[in-house]
Structure formats: C-alpha cells, structure tokens
C-alpha cells in the first residue's frame, strides 16, 4: 500500500498554532500582572511564554474526539461488567482490599487534581501552559468520575467502600495522600506543576498505574483495568506537560535552576513516601503478582529515572536528593508497610492477612536479602498467634512523621532493625520525622507544616468523635466489625467462600 498525500486544510502544527496559541492575547484594559497575579511570586522568571512547546499539539476539537471515544469504550465495558456479575471473576476477594485503598486514597486525589489544574491553568499567562492545564483538569474530573462509577459495582457486595469521600478527609492513613495533595495545591502554580506534573506524573506515576493496572488485569478485575487504562491513556499527555514545565523553567532563566532543584528534591520525596502504599499492594495484596515493588522501582525509577536525570544534567539539574535512600529501601518498604497495616487492621477500612506458603516463597525469591532474615520471623509469629485465636492488633496509636504523616515505621538507611528518628525544633516546639527527606522539607518551610492535621494528635485533642477507638472509627464512618479487622474473620471472606463453593457445586 502506498502512502498517499493528504489534502488537508491544516497540518497538526498549524492547527495547533491557530487553535491554541491564537486564543491568547495581551490584555489592555488591565495590566497583565493584575490579570495573572500569581505567576511571579514564587521567584520563577519567564521571559518568553511563546517558547513553551506542547509536543502533542492536541487541539480542543481533537481532544473531545478522542476523549469521547475513550468514554464510549469504557462505559460499554462497565455495563458489561455489571451485567455479567463481574465481581465473581476476580481471583480472590483479598484482592478487593487494594481496590478499597484505591477508592479512598487515589480517586479523591483525581478530584483534587481536577481542582488544582483548573486553578493553575487560570493563573498562567502563557496560553500553551494554560490550555495543557485546562485539558488536564477535565481529564482529572473524568478520572474521578469513571473510577467511582466503575468501583461502585463492588460496593454492592463488599465492605469498606460506602463513604470514600468522608474517609479520605478523616481516616488516619488517608491523611497521607490527602496532605500530599493539599501541600501541592497550596503552593504556587509553578511548584504545583513541578510537584504533580513532573515529580508525580512523570517520575513516579508509572509505579502507581502500570503495575497496579496490570495487576488488576492479572486478577480478573475488569472494572479497574478498564478505568485504569482509560485514565492512563491521558497520562502520557500529562507526563509531557511535566517534562515541558521543567525544561521551560530551566531554559527561561538560570536563576530558576536552584528553585526547580529544590522542588524536585521535595516532591520526589513526598511522592515516594506516598507510594509506600503501592509497594504493599504489589507485594502483598495481589493474589496473582505481576512484579515486585523492587523490580518496579528498578525498571521505572533506577532505569527510566537515570535516563531522565542524565538528560536534565545539561541544565544543571541532578538526581533528587535522597534517591539513594529510596533505592536502599526497595528491599524493605513493602514489608514494613504491610506489617503496619497488619498492626492496625482494627482501625483500617480494609482487611489484612498474612502471606500463605506460596506467597512467602515468592517473597523470598524476590527479596533474597531481606525477607527471610528480617520479616519472616515477624510474620510467622503473627500467623501463629492468629492460628491460636489471638490475632495480634497493636492497641496503641503510633507516632507520626510531621511531614508525610506516615507513622515512624521506616528504619535507618543501612540498618533494618533500628527505627529512623529525625527531629527539629521550631519556635519552642519539637517536630518529628521519619527520614532526612521529610525533615528537610519541614526545615525549609516550617510555617507550612506546623499546621499539619496529624490524625493521632487530633484524636488526643478530642477532635475525632470521642476518646475511645470505637468513637473514632464511627466518626470515620466505618462499619465496625465489618469494614475493619483480619480478612479471614471478615464478611467479605465469608461471602466469597460461599460464592466459591456454590460455583464448585454448579460445576
């Protein structure tokens, strides 16, 4: 087949120029600085907004065309999934606990991103950046809606999915993702894009979406796969916005380099800490595993990140600070996080369990240097207690990091047996951190983080429904004894076992 010449009116580049760049103008009734009051105070110097490059050159007409195509596909699948009792097709009901975390922890961030990009898009005077932000804002709203819609089917059958919004605002572990996004949204527009578009979308998001969605596919979760990949197909465009904002700032003025570097350091670390949740999903919550957290880290950060930062080296940008700590932690992260949720399963809106023998051999195989030595004894002890009818719950509230709000569960780099403590004094008060990364972030902007809404401290101040754990969990809108606790004591487990037995009988 020969390639025939097209007789189109305009090519992609021309169409982009006339339908994007030509939409902006220099204001004359009011000075530009008054119309766009927020794009200078962060100290980023921009001399020529026209130098902004949008490599996808997507115009609004093409945007609607392709997005509507994506939606049609997605809703066809969702209908079919619901009509065909898709919930029965998953590998095991344990898997759905990962979906519960996604619904309460990630989907509300999509909505927050929708708001964040709408605001940021409004406040850039450069029209290229503005349109990219506006498209992303619409994308993010679509992600929030389609995710809630797809997962709502599981809510008809399984626990812990009835109040995602309130839980996101109140539940202790969900303050980790919530505070991450609140931090970004309360920064200026350039820092917001560095935080979300670059550090999160470009550098880290593959670690969230790709293994997780692939995991959903592997575990028969048609709903999550479909919304996941529908959302992910927008992600490549979001990633290019991330790389563009960084290069644009770096090329515009040398004085921008140290500001950008500090933001990259900060948001790499904040994003990495938030992804601790994902590490445990990958290594412990997928009945059929795709790849380990360690492998994903090597593929998506060590390899892809190295190529990226080598490229940015010519602008004077280096790898994010403490990346070597994150790389050291790859052998330990998921085990430490899973152990945490095993400790506090009584206060979580999803269930936890101990890995079975098959899963333990997988973990030994994937983590030859750490699992058997450091984590297996702990987990065997938990299993023995459970079998004896004395399931271990940690009955005391944990000490939290004042920046990431995760309990101090991480160990000293190089020593997995000693908890890592870091501390700062600010205006006569002590503040505690899980790591050097989190301490540095606080030390640079203490006024921001002395306002942190730390769940454990809020409970002790009496702001969370009452003094007893039961009061607090009710305030979280959790259905006690149903949403929380060990998986093998749960209604989810009971129901799943009945379903599976009926299925066997039918065959």
């Amino acid at each position, binding site marked *: 087949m020969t390639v025939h010449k097209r007789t189109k009116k305009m090519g992609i580049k021309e169409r982009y120029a006339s339908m994007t760049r030509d939409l902006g103008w220099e204001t004359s009734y009011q000075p530009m600085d008054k119309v766009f009051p927020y794009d200078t*105070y962060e100290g980023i110097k921009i001399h020529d907004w026209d130098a902004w490059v949008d490599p996808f050159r997507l115009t609004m007409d093409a945007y609607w065309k392709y997005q509507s195509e994506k939606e049609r596909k997605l809703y066809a699948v969702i209908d079919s999934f619901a009509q065909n009792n898709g919930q029965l097709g998953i590998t095991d009901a344990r898997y759905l606990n990962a979906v519960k975390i996604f619904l309460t922890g990630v989907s509300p961030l999509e909505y927050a991103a929708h708001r964040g990009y709408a605001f940021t898009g409004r406040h850039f005077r450069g029209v290229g950046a503005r349109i990219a932000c506006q498209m992303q804002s619409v994308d993010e709203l679509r992600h929030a809606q389609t995710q809630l819609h797809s997962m709502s089917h599981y809510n008809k059958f399984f626990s812990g999915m009835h109040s995602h919004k309130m839980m996101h605002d109140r539940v202790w572990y969900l303050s980790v993702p919530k505070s991450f996004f609140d931090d970004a949204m309360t920064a200026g527009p350039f820092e917001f894009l560095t935080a979300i578009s670059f550090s999160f979308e470009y550098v880290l998001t593959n670690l969230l979406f790709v293994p997780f969605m692939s995991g959903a596919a592997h575990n028969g979760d048609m709903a999550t796969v479909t919304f996941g990949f529908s959302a992910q197909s927008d992600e490549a465009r979001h990633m290019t916005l991330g790389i563009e904002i960084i290069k644009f700032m770096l090329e515009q003025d040398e004085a921008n380099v140290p500001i950008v570097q500090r933001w990259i350091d900060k948001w790499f670390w904040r994003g990495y800490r938030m992804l601790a949740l994902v590490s445990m999903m990958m290594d412990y919550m997928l009945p059929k595993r795709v790849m380990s957290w360690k492998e994903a880290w090597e593929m998506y950060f060590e390899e892809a990140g190295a190529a990226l930062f080598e490229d940015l080296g010519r602008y004077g940008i280096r790898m994010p600070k403490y990346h070597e700590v994150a790389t050291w932690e790859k052998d330990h992260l998921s085990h430490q996080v899973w152990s945490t949720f095993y400790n506090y399963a009584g206060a979580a809106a999803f269930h936890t369990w101990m890995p079975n023998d098959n899963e333990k051999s997988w973990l030994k195989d994937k983590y030859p240097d750490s699992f058997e030595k450091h984590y297996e004894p702990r987990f065997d002890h938990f299993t023995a207690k459970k079998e004896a009818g004395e399931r271990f719950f940690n009955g005391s509230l944990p*000490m939290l990091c004042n920046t990431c709000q995760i309990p101090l569960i991480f160990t000293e780099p190089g020593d997995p047996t000693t*908890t890592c403590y870091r501390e700062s004094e600010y205006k006569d*008060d002590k503040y505690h951190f899980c790591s050097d990364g989190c301490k540095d972030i606080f030390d640079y902007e203490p006024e*921001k983080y002395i306002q942190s809404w730390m769940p454990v401290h809020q409970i002790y101040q009496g702001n969370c429904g009452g003094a007893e754990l039961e009061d607090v969990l009710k305030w979280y809108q959790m259905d006690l004894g149903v949403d929380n606790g060990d998986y093998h004591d749960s209604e989810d487990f009971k129901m799943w076992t009945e379903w599976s037995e009926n299925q066997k009988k039918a065959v």
Partner: protein
Amino acid sequence: MSVKSIGDYSFTPKDKVENFHGNMLVYMQWEKHLSFCAPLAFPLPPDMPFGDLVAGVLAPAYAVHPDSENVDFEKGEWQLNNVPFTPDFSKSLQENGLSHKSVIRVRTPGLEGLAGADSAAG
C-alpha cells in the same frame, strides 16, 4: 527559610501543648521490637511518676510481645530525645526532663525481638 506567599504567612501550631487538656504528648519505643511497627504516642500528665509510665503505659502496650515475660525495664538502656539518660523512676516525667513531644527509647540487651540479636527483627 520562610514560605514564599502572596500575603502574610504565619500560623499557630496545631499541636501546641495547651490543646491536649493538661497532658503532654510522649512518644515511646521498646527498641528492636519491630513487630510493633512504629514508636507509640500517648497523652500523659507531666506529673506522672516515670515508674508509672513504665508499669502503666509502656509495659501494657507491649504486653503481648513474647519478650515481655522476661523483661525488666528498670535495667534497660534509656534514651531521652535520642540522648542516653538514666531515668529516676520515682520522679515525675517533668522532673526527669520530659517535655511535650519528647521521645523515650529503651533497649534491653538480650531481649532483641523475635528473631534474636543477629537480625533483631520483630
């Protein structure tokens, strides 16, 4: 550094000691016993005797750990705010130098968690 902002940016800390109804926050950890995933946080009266903190708060919190049967915390190696210190069990927390958001760590050589001293895990 201060926050770059579009206006005045100063706030009252959310966790000032006054907000804890006469108590202060104290963080505690029995080191190496990492089956308890993180140090623990408690609101405690500053005039509580240190001995009561050990017998009435720390020991019950870790009671289900198998090492608890054999532990004598009085012989432990203590740290206050990450500096070695020797607590006086009869004196109050305040008299022992604890203040709001202090960290108490105790290590008990010989009792190093579920996997023993080699890997000291759990």
